[in-house]
């Protein structure tokens, strides 16, 4: 798996490179600033981009802007955004092109190496990996279109937003896989997502979730 990495702190950049390399990824390029990120992404077209939101020179949200621009040029380029904090606003912007292969995680999650590498793989293969913190912030809101969902369905949706497969959700919630797919179908119905060949209904559900 080929990875482009963007992180301004040398310590974290080296650590991430080491971590990814140890798990069979090839870091084709590691940049430490915003302006060189977009050309790097467009040139190397990595299997996944792992990018810090805040980068020099202005230390605002250049990383995020760069990956959004990169996805406009290379549709569906899988990106995993890391940040010291998570903001539902950013998650929504990341998902707004309605294609998969998006992750948005707190930097702390890197310490759970296995889970982190799993998230990287999932994003590279077109899935989502939303930080539980984003999901938690959204669940904290009381009134939303999601209030039509039962408590169990909300749990399933939260797991889906984090990017888990049906099997993984079944394991996590201690229910059968059949029950999971039943819940998911019910969620799709309630959120007004008709069945289609498009595999991205999961992403759309997450997006509805973020827009709620």
């Amino acid at each position, binding site marked *: 798996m080929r990875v482009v990495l963007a992180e301004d702190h040398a310590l974290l950049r080296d650590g991430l490179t080491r971590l990814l390399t140890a798990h069979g990824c090839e870091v084709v390029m590691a940049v430490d600033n915003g302006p060189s990120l977009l050309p790097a992404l467009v040139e190397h077209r990595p299997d996944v981009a792992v990018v810090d939101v805040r980068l020099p020179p202005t230390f605002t949200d250049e990383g995020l802007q760069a990956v*959004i*621009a990169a996805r406009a040029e290379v549709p569906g380029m899988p990106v995993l955004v890391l940040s010291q904090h998570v*903001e539902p606003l950013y998650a929504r912007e990341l998902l707004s092109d309605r294609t998969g292969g998006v992750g948005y995680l707190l930097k*702390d999650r890197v*310490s759970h190496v296995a889970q982190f590498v799993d998230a990287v793989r999932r994003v590279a293969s077109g899935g989502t990996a939303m930080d539980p913190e984003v999901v938690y912030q959204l669940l904290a809101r009381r009134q939303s279109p999601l209030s039509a969902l039962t408590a169990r369905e909300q749990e399933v949706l939260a797991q889906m937003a984090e990017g888990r497969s049906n099997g993984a959700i079944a394991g996590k919630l201690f229910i059968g896989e059949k029950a999971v797919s039943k819940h998911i179908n019910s969620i799709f119905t309630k959120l007004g997502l008709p069945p289609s060949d498009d595999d991205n209904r999961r992403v759309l559900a997450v997006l509805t979730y973020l827009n709620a």
Partner: protein
Amino acid sequence: MNSRDWIRDGLRAVLGGLLAIPLAALNLPLFALAVAALALSLVPVLGMLLFPLVTLLIRARADLARKIAGHSGVPIARPYRPAPERAVPGGWRYYKWIMTDPATWRDLAWLVPGAAAGIVLGALTLAVPAYGLEGVLLVPLWIWLGTGWYGYGAIWPFETVGDAFLSLPQGALILAVGVAVAPHLRRFDARSARLLLGPTRNAELRLRVSQLTVTRADTVDAQAAELRRIERDLHDGAQVRLVSLGMTIGLAEEMVEADPAGARKLLAEARETSTAALADLRHLVRGIHPPVLAERGLDGAVRALAMALPIPTAVQTALPGRLDTPVESAAYFAVAEALANTTRHSFARNAAVELRHTGSALVMRVCDDGLGGADPAGGTGLRGIERRLAAFDGTMSLSSPPGGPTIVTMELPCASSSPKIMPSSGTA
């Protein structure tokens, strides 16, 4: 301004002119009273009592004039010095306070010219529309009265019925001009009053200094309290967790040979602790300066705030770009506090935030359709917003009738002379 506003303002000004005449006339007996009191001030005791009392009357009249001027868009600040401590009417301190305040004498000097200006301008405000109205109503009147010798406007005397009908357009024109000019006349009156009723340069500076002293003290207090809170949070939160983290890792290091399974458990524990420490720090940072505010400025931060609210909140912004960091921060926390009040107390179903830059000030409006009846005296939230804004000479006003809606309007003066340009999206 549309035509309805124009007519409404004009009519209000005409009505103001009508009120101004008797009010201005009131100045003359007040002046006579003041002269009499001054003459009697040579009489012991009585003089010391009488003149301050008359002054209070004059001040009430001057305050009314200031209030009326404020309504016609010419704010006039109260120039009086604050009463000294232990000053009682009839006492020497009180007498000295009244006598040495230049504003006392400026009020006195205003009474007669103020009366003249009020009566003349008031009459003018009334007379022109009245004459226009006469022209509009003249035809039926003229036919009814049947007077042969009469005229209006440019036509003296009317010879035929056709002449009489010409008074109609003339009257309408004069009425329109009268209504249009009336607000300007009221403003002119207010401006002339400001010459004597407003604070002198000196008094203005003194007012400013006392205001700055208060807001600076508040700001310093708030800063100190904030630093104490941060220190305590770091000391009791992240610092303790990091110490325990080091301890756990040290223990695991010792155990790794003898009991690898136990060591592994300790390391997992250490990782949990590090995650908790990071969460503490994140929480702390959010309270000091929210990262989204640093990254996106006020616009993005308020949008993120609205997204996190439990009720649907519309956000409308018109900002020239990034504002100065301290202003941005004060504005953000003021809006956040206002929205927190909304969700906590109002039982609103919808809320709205509007941010606008007028060129000289940032205007923030937070509305909700809740119960209303909010009162700054009721809690610490609204007072806190006031103090936060006062540090920047900002103001807050509240409209919250029982039954709602509640509208909090906050203003922060900030010139847009050097707007910071946002990095254009997509090219960073």
